[in-house]
C-alpha cells in the first residue's frame, strides 16, 4: 500500500574540485509521508533536498521521483511534482503585491485554474486580507507564510519546506505546522528541514537525522529523538517533552511529543481534574 515517491539510491554529491557533501545516502520517502530532515548546518540536509526537485543531480547514484530518475526529467516536470520553499522568504519573494506573488507560479506553469489556486493558497495561510499589500510591508512571519502560499498555489504533490518556523513566534510556528499537517492529511507528501526539535516532536511522525553528509538515523520521530547514542554526533538535543516523558515513564507516562501530553498523562495517573488545556 505504501508507494515510494522519492528514492535516493547510494547518492554522492560533490561540487567540482571539492570533497563530497553527500556520500552513500539511501532514503525512500513514500507518498503521503511527513518527514523531518534534521542535522546541524553543513550536515547535507539542504543539499539532499535540492536533489528532490532536480536543482542538483547526484555525482554518483540515483534519485528517482515518481519512479523516474531526476536526470531524465525536465525542471518544469519536476517543478510540478516537487515544490521547494526556501529558508529565507526574501530570496523567493519578488512580486509587487501579495496576490501577484502567489499567482506567478500557477500562471507560469500554465495551470488553467491559476486564480482559484492562488485564492485558495492565500486563504489557507490566512493572507487573503493582505492580497493587495506589498510583500515587504508584511512581517517576517507573514512573508514566510506568503512564500509557502506561493509554492502551494502550484499544487505540487510533494513539498520541501526549509526551516518554516525560523524567526517565527510560537503562534506563527504552530499555525504553519498545523497547515502543513492538514496538507499531509489531504494526501500530499511533505519534507521539512528544521532545527526546531519541539516542532518535530509535536507534529512530524518520521525523522531523518543527517551528519557529515550521511544519514545517521531514520525512523519514527518518537524513536529517533530517543537515540541518545546518536543525537550528540549530529549536535542535536532532544526536546524537553521527550526527556521528561522518559524520566516519568516508570509511573506510566507514555511517549509524549509535547509537555501538554505529559501533563495529561500525569493528571490521568495521579487522578486530578481534567488537564488545564489552553
Amino acid at each position: 500500500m505504501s508507494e515510494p515517491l522519492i528514492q535516493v539510491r547510494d547518492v554522492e554529491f560533490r561540487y567540482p574540485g571539492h570533497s563530497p557533501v553527500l556520500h552513500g545516502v539511501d532514503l525512500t520517502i513514500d507518498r503521503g509521508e511527513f518527514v523531518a530532515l534534521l542535522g546541524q548546518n553543513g550536515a547535507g540536509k539542504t543539499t539532499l533536498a535540492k536533489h528532490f526537485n532536480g536543482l542538483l543531480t547526484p555525482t554518483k547514484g540515483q534519485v528517482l521521483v515518481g519512479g523516474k530518475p531526476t536526470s531524465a526529467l525536465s525542471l518544469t516536470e519536476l517543478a510540478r511534482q516537487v515544490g521547494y520553499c526556501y529558508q529565507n522568504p526574501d530570496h523567493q519573494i519578488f512580486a509587487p503585491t501579495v496576490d501577484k506573488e502567489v499567482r506567478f507560479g500557477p500562471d507560469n506553469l500554465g495551470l488553467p485554474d491559476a486564480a482559484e489556486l492562488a485564492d485558495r493558497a492565500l486563504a489557507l495561510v490566512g493572507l487573503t486580507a493582505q492580497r493587495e499589500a506589498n510583500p515587504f510591508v508584511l512581517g517576517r512571519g507573514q512573508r514566510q507564510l506568503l512564500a509557502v502560499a506561493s509554492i502551494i498555489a502550484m499544487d505540487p504533490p510533494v513539498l520541501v519546506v526549509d526551516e518554516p518556523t525560523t524567526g517565527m513566534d510560537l503562534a506563527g510556528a504552530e499555525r504553519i505546522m498545523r497547515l502543513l499537517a492538514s496538507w499531509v492529511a489531504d494526501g500530499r507528501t511533505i519534507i521539512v528541514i528544521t532545527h526546531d526539535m519541539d516542532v518535530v516532536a509535536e507534529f512530524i511522525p518520521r525523522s531523518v537525522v543527517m551528519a557529515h553528509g550521511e544519514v545517521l538515523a531514520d525512523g519514527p520521530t518518537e524513536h529517533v529523538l530517543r537515540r541518545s547514542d546518536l543525537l550528540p554526533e549530529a549536535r542535536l538535543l532532544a526536546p524537553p517533552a521527550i526527556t521528561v516523558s522518559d524520566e516519568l515513564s516508570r509511573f506510566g507516562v507514555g511517549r509524549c511529543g509535547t509537555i501538554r501530553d505529559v501533563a495529561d498523562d500525569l493528571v490521568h495517573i495521579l487522578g486530578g481534574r481534567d488537564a488545564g488545556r489552553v
Partner: protein
Amino acid sequence: MTVPGPQAPRTRNDAEIVLAAEDLWLIYPTAEQPSLRGVTFRARAGEFIGITGPSGAGKSTLLACLQGLVPRSVTAETTGSVRVFGHDVLTGTLGADGSRIGLVLQDAEAQIVGMTVAEDLAFGPENYGVPPAEIRRRISRALAAVGLDGMAGRDTYALSGGQKQRLAIASVLMLEPDVILLDEPTSELDPVGKAEVFEVVDRLRRESATTIVMVEHELDRLAAMADRILVVDQGRIAADGTPAELLADVALFLRTGGERPPAAAELDWRLRSAGIPLDGEPSTDLVTVLARITALAEKHA
C-alpha cells in the same frame, strides 16, 4: 579577557537611567493601528533587559526608537518621549553621544559592509575619525570579546551564520558603546550558531558594564541572563518583572503566543491547574519539578 566598554562596576539602584520611554505611542504612515500604545519603561546603566512577545507586537519598533532611528530614518508619527542618555531622540539627536549606543539586527548579512573582517570592523570607527593605531587595538579587543581571535584577515562572505552575527556584535563593540541593543540576533541561526551568540552576549554581560537590551524568543537562555524581562504584546508592555516572576506566568505566554514557555514552568502550571497538589511554590526549574512529581507519584503508587 578584556571587553571594550566602560569597566565601572555594576550598580543597579543608584545607576544613571540611560534609556527611558514615557507613554510612547507610534503609528507608521500607512498603518491603520498604532504599533506602540503607551509604552513606558526605564533601563539603568549596566542593566540587562530582555524583551519578548509575539511577532508584530512592536518589539523591533521599540528598539528602532531607542536607537534614534525614529523619525529620521524610519518615518512614523509619535507622541510621548524617548530619552537616551538624557537626550530626547524623537525631537532631537544624540549628537556626540551617537556612538554610545549600538544596534545588532536579526539578519547578520544585512549589517556586514566589509570584504574582510578587519575592513568591516574598521568601518564604524573610521567614520568617527578614530586613529588607525587605535582602530587596530580595538579590532583585537573586539575579536577577542566575540571569540573570533586571529580572524581579522578572513573574507566576511566565508563566515558561518554564527560567526557573521558575532562579527556584527564586534562591529558594534568597535565604537565602545555604553548600550547595546540586540534585535533577535539568534533567530536565523542554527543551534550551534545560537549557542555561540548567547555565549558572547553572556560574556559581555558578565565582564563589562554595558547596558544590554535583547529582543529574543529563546526564553530559557534569556531568563538565565536578564535582570528584567519585558513582555510586549499589541504595542503595550504586558508584563515587566524578574525572569522568575515572568517564567512562572505560563498563562501569559500561552495567551500572547509569543514563545514557548519553559518546559518546567509549563508542566508545573498545567498540573497545578488540573488540581495536582505539587509541593512548594511554582517552579521554573526542571529538576525541582520532576522531583516533586516523582515524590507525588511514588506516594500515589
